[in-house]
Every structure is written in C-alpha cells, then in structure tokens.
C-alpha cells in the first residue's frame, strides 16, 4: 500500500456487522469515532479514550478489543462487530441482552454495550464459561452503577440458557 497522507481522508473497506462497508477517514481517526461519527452507530460508547473503562469494546475478528485504542486504518479488511449486531431484530433482544434485562445487569447503561461485546465473545469461545471466567472478562470493564453482581448473574444465566439450547435433550 502507498503511504497515506495525513492531510487527506482515505477509504477504508471492512466488514461491519456482517455487511461490507467503505468508509472515509483521516489517518488519525479512532475506530470509536469512525463508528459513531462517520457511520452513525452510536451504540459503541466512549468513556476514557485510553483503554481503561471498556465502554468502547467491540469485536475485531471475533475478539473483544478497545475501539478507542484502534485506529480506523488498522481495521482495513477486518471483521468488526458492534453491539448493534446482537439483537436479531429491532424488537427482539439477544439471549444475553434479555438476561441483562431480567437480572438488572444494567442501570444507566453506559458500560453495557462494551460489556455485552466482551461477554458475547466469551460465551461463543467458551460455552462452558463459569463465574471466574466471567469475572476475568469483566475486569476489563468499569461499571459505576451495578456493583457487577447482577452482571455476573445475567452472564451465568445466558451461558446456561445457551448450553441448554445446544443440547436440547440433555
């Protein structure tokens, strides 16, 4: 690839929530800002912009990652998923989201999109994830409202539900 000039915008092709997108951005643009300001997906939240709070967590090639510590240029050709990809339909929550609602896993909701993306990746990679694995993943997120206990309960419930669905006769 040629050297991309700082003063201009450049096209970045990648996959976003299953669809091919082509976005224009300056080199200095963060993935979090590309998603929110250029593409208009504001589900990804921005708290600290230095990797500490976890609000901006998305999935890049299936792995949870900080959108605020990723340059838009770095996701060229990658598969990016945001919280908008979770619900199968605008009127239907995903099982993980529904469990958050049932177990009061959110209050103000600022931290929620990031936490959902981390836990969604965990439950996909490790369907037998237990309390410790969930807590380990949550250690990369700050929540100022819930005290975390209800988030852990919601995740455990979603994991259990997912296991039942996968082995319907068990």
């Amino acid at each position, binding site marked *: 690839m040629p*050297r991309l000039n*700082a003063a201009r915008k450049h096209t970045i092709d990648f996959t976003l929530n299953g669809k091919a997108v082509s976005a224009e951005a300056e080199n*200095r643009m963060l993935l979090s800002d590309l998603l929110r300001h250029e593409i208009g997906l504001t589900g990804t939240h921005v708290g600290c912009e230095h990797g500490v709070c*976890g609000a901006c967590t998305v999935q890049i090639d299936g792995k949870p990652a*900080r959108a605020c*510590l990723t340059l838009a*240029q*770095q996701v060229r050709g990658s598969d990016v998923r945001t919280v908008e990809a979770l619900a199968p339909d605008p009127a239907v929550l995903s099982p993980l989201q529904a469990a958050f609602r049932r177990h009061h896993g959110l209050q103000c909701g600022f931290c929620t999109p990031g936490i959902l993306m981390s836990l969604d990746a965990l439950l996909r990679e490790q369907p037998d994830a237990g309390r410790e694995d969930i807590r380990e993943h949550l250690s*990369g997120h700050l929540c100022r409202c819930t005290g975390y206990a209800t988030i852990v309960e919601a995740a455990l419930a979603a994991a259990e539900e997912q296991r039942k669905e996968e082995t319907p006769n068990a």
Partner: protein
Amino acid sequence: MKPASFDFLCPDTLEEALAALADGGGDARVIAGGQSLVPMLNMRLARPSLLVDIMRLEALRRIETSGDEIIVGAGVRQAELEAWTDLSRDLPLLAAAFPWLGHVQTRARGTVCGSIAHADPSAELPLSLVTLGGAVSLRSRKQKRRVEADDFFIGMMATDLAEGEMIEAVHFPKARPGCGYAFREVGRRHGDFAIVASAAIADEKGLRLGIAGVDDRPRVFPLPALDNDQFDDAINDIAWSLNARDDIHASARYRRELVRSLGRETLKEASRCRA
C-alpha cells in the same frame, strides 16, 4: 483526546517498513497492537509524523523453536502466544505472567514485542525476558544485531533501540527440566500495572529473582537457598539496592516490603515447582 495528524504506511514487505523508518528519522514510529501507543497519541504525549503498521507483515507473525530458544516475531499478539499449545511446557514463566498483563481485551491486540519496545518499568514481559536471560533481535535497513535483554532495557521506558531500528523478534530461553518457575505481582486492581511484580527461577545453580515496578527497569539477582541463614539479609539488600520511590500508587517503603515478602513467596513457589 484525539491524536494529532500523521502519515500512515502499511508496508507489504519488511524492507519497505525499514526504509520508511530509516527515512523518517526519529519522527517515524512503528505501530503494533497500539495498546500503549494509541493512548499516548490520544493524549498527544506522542506526535509522530509517520506511523508504520507492521501487523500485516507475514514474516513477523511467527512463534518458532530454535535450539533452546523460543523466538517470537514482532507480529505475534500477546493472546496468540498465551494460546500457543506449548506455552506451559516451554515457557511456564510466561504462562504464569500472562494473566497479570492487562486484560483479555488488551491482550487480544497488544503484541509481545510491543511490550518489550515500550519498556514500562513494571511490565510483565520485560521482567520475564530479563529474568530468563533472553535476548532481542533488532533490525534496521543497514544492519541486524542481537542484544541481551539485560543490556536492552536502559531506563524508564528507554531501550537500546536506535533511530530507524525496530525489534524483529524476541528470544526466550526454553524451560529446562528440573527448573522451577513462578510469577506473582501486587497491583491495585486486576489488570492494572503492577506496583511490584516478581519472577523467580529455581535450578541446580540456585535461585534467581527478577523484580519490576521498583527500579526504572526490570532487574534480576541471584539469591542463596531459602533455608540459608544469609537469605533474609540477601533479599533485604536487594530491596534497598533498588531505587524505590514514593508515588501516588505506593510508598518506597511499601515497595521494599513487597520485594521482601512477594519475592520470598515467588521463590518458594519456584522451588516447590522444581521439586
């Protein structure tokens, strides 16, 4: 909290990357996982004129065994080495250290070599490399050289890396049968940088203790056996020889106490693993 502007190059070959770094002088910088560099860009503590993204260079994405060393290329992410099937057999010290290194979400992007290049005085990977007695392969347009870990780290976030040079790989000595390894640290919260981190090796020659978070770089020391009556004095001397400082995270006195107590615990665990 937005980066200042910079040119961006995603080279197709290592030669192209090295040429850009050579021409860019001190203003061109490698970007690997971005987990330390992007926060610095966001806060404008770093204002490079050019970033060279090395993550698409296939040649750098390798974990290889060569003789008694494991060679980890600059394109290997921390999570990839953490998931490497032979890690607990060949690099048990790293297997013990990884859970302390940031979070799942930062290890998914951050690289092994990026952490070595960043040289944070409390970082786990530089400490592990120094304690194991590993080395770093450096490469510039003009030359290749190998530097022993202990000579590579020269101060607070300062290394022997010259202008136009990059880390091509790091070399970790492979675990030997009959050696015990252990890693422990104390931090405020899980995933935070350590206040003090300690790495220990027990082998037929005796004990070695590596300490990070106290001096301006990781340091390693030999120690007499735990049941030797010189042990307490020896570890106390180590604690006082490190330039412990007070900062917002901990006092110098607390850090020295951690060197003594955490150091002893880590050495005990390494000795148990050896037995």
